[in-house]
């Protein structure tokens, strides 16, 4: 991210502030990925963002506050990709919507391992109250799965706990891959993840048929 030119540049204070805030968030995400939560200090974040320590404290009261803001920003970035991919489909086209949404999710994470790390690994493990945010984030993706989902092959409505288990299971799988340093290869998991997501609603035979046709 480019630093603003020094000295008078005629940009509004609000613009400068927003630019700094975004750079600090990006700085934290990068630092977290490189050295982990413990070693990510305000100094390090500031260095990476080219923002002074005193300017850091204009935006955030502490490292944790920056961390929480970065976490939210990361989740929203992922959400935007998924929602955009799903938006091209009618509500009735559940399977194609799921395929595109899940493909977008995996592509987004694979292309940005630092983003994947903060959202799926650090959000879970750093403690400090970020866990509640992780939980809320995962839960917030459940409606994308649930909306317009077909009934199970036996005609019964798929239980709410199944929707949650599908989303939670996928988050867990992807998190484990990121933890193992395999974030860039997450795209390879697409057929597996799709089969896992579609099976409770369509049955395994139909799920596989759709995936191989798609």
């Amino acid at each position, binding site marked *: 991210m480019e630093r603003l030119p020094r000295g008078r540049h005629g940009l509004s204070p609000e613009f400068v502030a927003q630019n700094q805030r975004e750079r600090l968030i990006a700085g934290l995400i990068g630092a977290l990925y490189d050295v982990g939560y413990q070693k990510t200090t305000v100094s390090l974040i500031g260095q990476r963002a080219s923002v002074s320590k005193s300017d850091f404290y204009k935006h955030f009261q502490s490292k944790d506050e920056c961390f929480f803001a970065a976490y939210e920003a990361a989740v929203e970035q992922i959400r935007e990709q998924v929602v955009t991919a799903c938006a091209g489909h009618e509500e009735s086209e559940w399977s194609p919507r799921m395929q595109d949404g899940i493909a977008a999710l995996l592509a987004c994470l694979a292309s940005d391992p630092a983003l994947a790390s903060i959202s799926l690994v650090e959000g879970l493990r*750093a403690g400090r109250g970020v866990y509640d945010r992780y939980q809320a984030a995962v839960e917030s993706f459940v409606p994308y799965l649930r909306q317009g989902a077909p009934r199970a092959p*036996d005609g019964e409505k798929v239980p709410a706990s*199944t929707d949650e288990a599908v989303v939670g299971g996928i988050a867990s*799988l992807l998190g484990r891959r990121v933890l193992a340093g395999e974030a860039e290869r997450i795209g390879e998991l697409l057929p597996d993840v799709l089969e896992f997501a579609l099976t409770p609603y369509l049955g395994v035979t139909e799920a596989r048929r759709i995936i191989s046709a798609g």
Partner: protein
Amino acid sequence: MDAMAELCAEQGYEATKIADIVRRARVARKTLYDNFDGKEELFLASFDSAVEDAFGRVEEACKGAEAGWADRVAAGLRAFLAYIAENPAAARVCLVEAISATPTASARYDAAVQRFIELLGRNAPPETGLPDTLEETLVGGVAWILHQRIRRGETEQALDLTPELLDFLLSPYQGVGKSK
């Protein structure tokens, strides 16, 4: 170890102090430090003990079940849910607190999850063509559900989850239709 588990369940690992533990356990500080280097070691011992307990019960149940794989998975699941219902503090230590308590605790959690993944793999049908990641994702999904229920204090009703969780675990292996 019980005091550690109870306090973690009540207030979380970070907020739990040695002073709280010795008071709850009614032991002297010296006794705690004779047995454990400190808070983390005590936590890890509590975690390890609970995992051995739970895993042992699940394995026993799988072995004791009838020959069919669906019965084995059902027996194992029920044993696990029963463990949670009977030991809510220990369940919380294992499925909630361990993940974020310390880096070593996270690693132990991952290792424990891996054991359950392998156990499921051994007891499920050896059908070819299933995704390699299936057991991993299924265990992750069940852990997520249980994690949420434990955080909400709903451990007593853990066994009520059996039909839904069993269906979730069995349907990829069976294709269409409900499980018993």
